[in-house]
């Protein structure tokens, strides 16, 4: 097989992976513009960062997601092609990946997630009642960051007394910026602290089985892969990944959803007057605001969407092209709760599709339900000042809501 470096079909573009201070939801528009050029585009090495490809069309994104043999998850951040860290199971390929998913699956299937609903709902209500009588609320600090943190702790059976400590760590890891933590050493330190906490916890649970409840961590202590017990270090990597995976993603989705509802009274009133559409609204908001992007490494020279790609190349996979597909949905950037078919890959596709998808949907649904029961009217304070950051999870930086 001859490999052609066919640059005429793989245009080179400028792209800033970490672009910040952007207008809200402008990141999606920039990705859509890439798709107008070609299904795959190339970003050249620049400013000390390596080059990579971007899958800009929905078909290309799904093709890569669905074929782990050609596209490895051993590296998932396009500008980090040779990572020194291992996040389990997101950075593992089949067949080991399949073994991990089988072990994890029971904790994330729809029927299991439903069992968590009462406690998740109760915590949601507690959070809202903290600020429901105030004139303003810092939506991210007081709600969007706290809610998924609680859910993570429930999943692992972590003691609620440690919640505040996890919030401190969450802030240091997720909200490091060029002012408060310019070299991200604070964020890395916090990750080491979380890992240490998890290691101590795992050891304590092993030493005293009476500490184990009906939670994922208790079960994980006994897991085996290929007949070998999973190690404490593997469990730390796994729990660390679960912490990160479900935190910023859900917080970002909550924030962008409420920003939308705060600035689109018609859609907000629909939810208030007809709460039965909330599951559909959650899905449409996921389609319209697919915040997450990931990456893959090309295993051997091959083609994607007819374009040659080379072994070792990193491919950035935004999740937006499939759902925000202007061929399928000419008004793709409009949030329309009445779409007959809502199809998207906001939770990815293929073997690594987000295992937490059902849990995430539950959180989003409960948040919309409980918030609008108590706070049907709200607006954004200083709407023109709201900005977003990009990177691996697009997110609004700050959202202050005015409560009547």
């Amino acid at each position: 097989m001859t490999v052609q470096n066919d640059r005429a079909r793989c245009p080179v573009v400028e792209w800033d992976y970490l672009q910040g201070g952007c207008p809200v939801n402008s990141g999606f528009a920039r990705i859509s513009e890439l798709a107008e050029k070609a299904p795959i585009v190339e970003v050249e090495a620049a400013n000390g960062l390596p080059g990579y490809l971007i899958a800009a069309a929905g078909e290309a994104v799904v093709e890569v997601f669905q074929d782990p043999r050609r596209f490895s998850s051993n590296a998932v951040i396009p500008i980090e092609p040779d990572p020194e860290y291992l996040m389990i199971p997101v950075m593992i390929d089949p067949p080991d990946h399949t073994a991990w998913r089988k072990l994890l699956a029971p904790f994330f299937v729809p029927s299991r997630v439903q069992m968590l609903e009462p406690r998740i709902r109760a915590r949601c209500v507690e959070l809202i009642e903290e600020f429901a009588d105030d004139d303003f609320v810092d939506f991210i600090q007081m709600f969007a960051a706290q809610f998924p943190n609680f859910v993570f702790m429930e999943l692992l059976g972590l003691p609620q007394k440690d919640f505040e400590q996890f919030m401190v760590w969450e802030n240091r890891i997720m909200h490091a910026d060029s002012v408060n933590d310019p070299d991200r050493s604070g964020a890395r330190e916090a990750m080491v602290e979380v890992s240490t906490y998890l290691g101590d916890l795992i050891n304590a649970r092993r030493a005293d089985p009476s500490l184990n409840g009906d939670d994922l961590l208790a079960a994980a202590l006994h897991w085996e892969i290929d007949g070998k017990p999973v190690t404490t270090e593997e469990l730390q990597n796994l729990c660390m990944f679960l912490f990160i995976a479900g935190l910023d993603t859900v917080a970002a989705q909550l924030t962008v959803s409420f920003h939308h509802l705060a600035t689109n009274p018609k859609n907000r009133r629909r939810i208030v007057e007809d709460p039965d559409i909330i599951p559909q609204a959650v899905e449409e908001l996921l389609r319209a605001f697919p915040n997450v992007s990931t990456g893959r490494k090309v295993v051997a020279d091959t083609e994607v969407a007819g374009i040659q790609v080379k072994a070792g190349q990193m491919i950035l996979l935004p999740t937006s092209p499939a759902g925000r597909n202007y061929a399928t949905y000419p008004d793709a950037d409009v949030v329309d709760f009445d779409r007959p078919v809502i199809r998207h890959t906001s939770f990815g596709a293929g073997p690594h599709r987000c295992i937490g998808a059902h849990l995430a949907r539950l959180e989003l649904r409960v948040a919309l339900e409980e918030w609008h029961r108590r706070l049907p009217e709200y607006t954004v304070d200083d709407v023109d000042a709201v900005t977003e950051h990009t990177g691996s999870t697009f997110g609004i930086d700050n959202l202050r809501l005015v409560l009547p």
Partner: protein
Amino acid sequence: MKLTVDKQKCQGHAMCAAVAPSVYPLDDEGYVAFEHAEVDESDRSAATLGIETCPEQAISATT
């Protein structure tokens, strides 16, 4: 209408079950419970919605 689920492609998104729960029951692991199914004419549009919603395009139909 005959439905076929490609079990290699089904990844447990459960979107089919969300839009057409009676047509697409799930197993304990969150995947579609069948590989082949015969669907009543009255369920045609629900079944079609499930096919169109699947992110993996794992479901197909004949007649």
